[in-house]
């Protein structure tokens, strides 16, 4: 086939495809005007990330990135099943915030975790976390979530260990609300803050939960 003819056919196909995309785009904007219809509201993305950790070993200083929504900072729910110590602190550290291409735009902090005793096993603990958690600390605007081994020893994960992140809403664009303070992963130390709603110590319940005293 001559080169000119092939080029022409390609252009005709491109024009047709472009026109179809255009028509679909304009039709979509018409449908979107039916704001009374139920559906995903503006700025909301239904998104779930599930990562199996079994069989993985993180060396000291090792990092496992598990979520990156840049440039959007998001709200969602975080679940982790991983090895823990006697105080139910995970042997790996969960950090979140924004990791920018420039270190000056980077701010990460440890995620406050809620230990879930009734879902934990003998080898691994289960935690939930609210992303972000305005009451209990951590980075206020989260685009990135990572697992970091700050323990100084290799961390091996058990069968059934996993991370599950459910992002329910986009809260904004990090370009519109950048961090003014820099905090790099290297300055963090091992050990997430861990709250427990189910033990007898109500000083570690965290904020945002009302504990009802049980009557004997």
């Amino acid at each position: 086939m001559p080169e000119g003819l092939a080029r022409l056919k390609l252009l005709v196909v491109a024009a047709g495809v472009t026109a179809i995309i255009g028509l679909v785009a304009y039709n979509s904007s018409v449908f979107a005007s039916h704001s009374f219809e139920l559906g995903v509201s503006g700025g909301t993305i239904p998104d779930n990330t599930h990562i199996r950790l079994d069989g993985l070993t993180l060396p000291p200083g090792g990092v496992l990135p598990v979520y990156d929504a840049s440039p959007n900072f998001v709200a969602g729910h975080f679940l982790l099943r991983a090895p823990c110590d006697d105080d139910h602190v995970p042997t790996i550290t969960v950090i979140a915030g924004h990791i920018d291409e420039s270190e000056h735009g980077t701010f990460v902090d440890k995620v406050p975790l809620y230990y879930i005793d009734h879902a934990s096993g003998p080898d691994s603990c289960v935690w939930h976390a609210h992303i972000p958690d305005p009451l209990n600390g951590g980075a206020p605007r989260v685009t990135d979530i990572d697992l970091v081994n700050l323990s100084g020893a290799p961390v091996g994960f058990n069968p059934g260990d996993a991370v599950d992140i459910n992002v329910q809403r986009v809260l904004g664009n990090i370009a519109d609300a950048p961090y003014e303070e820099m905090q790099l992963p290297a300055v963090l130390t091992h050990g997430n803050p861990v709250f427990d709603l189910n033990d007898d110590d109500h000083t570690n319940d965290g904020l945002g939960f009302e504990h009802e005293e049980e009557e004997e």
Partner: protein
Amino acid sequence: MTDNKAYIIALAAVLATMGLLVSPSFIGHAFAHAHMTLTPDIENVNPISVVMGHTNEPTFGVKSGVHNGMHNVEVFLEDANTAIPLSGADLKIDKYYFRDFRSFERASSLDRADQIELNVTLGESFGEPGHYEAEQILQPGIYGYKLYGTIDYFGVAEVPIDTTLFCRMDSGGSSGDTSKFNGEGWGGGYGCTSDIDDLYFPNRPNLIKSTDADAGEAELQQVVLTGGSAGTVAAQGSTSAFQILAVGATAAVGGFFGLRAFRNRRGQQGP
């Protein structure tokens, strides 16, 4: 038609289509609102972002058959650090209306407003956490709102709010300082409500004067209405339709010439 000509036409069709697709992204709508950050001296409570304005800025007064004048008062509440919306606030507004700047200037207190409506509830919009609204239909003039009540900070504290804010007159050809009753900390602003007649072009009275036929006046007004404000609403709707037609027509022209060139080329090559 040579291959080169067909190629150029087809290329032009593609470029024109792309241009039509891109053009709507440059059609923006004004969204002027005022903003403040509450910094409560309450344990465990972080700064709270408060945004207030009218829906559908810029605002115009109601005019029968032209504009419904419906520009609700709206307030957005967020945790300032995380941008998480704050639901469950108990908010009310007192509304103050001055018909013009002279009336506003003369007033020594809010009680001197031309019209006052007190204790209007700002309801939370369904499915939009942190977004509170009160419906209303506006007249041209100066609107101010005293916003008060309590903000539920994630169940750990009730944060009081009590502040007043008036619209700004520094746009649309009018100007004047309308901030004398404003509370502290507000930045930005929402515009005061204009007369939709100001949008006419050419100016309607001048156009009417330019004709000497009395019988033609009613017709002329009708023409101005159609081509002016009412037409503005219609134009927004017809813009999309026009672009759809233009995209389709441009692609069809490009496809037609491309196909014809393709057939001619095959004909020349023979069986």
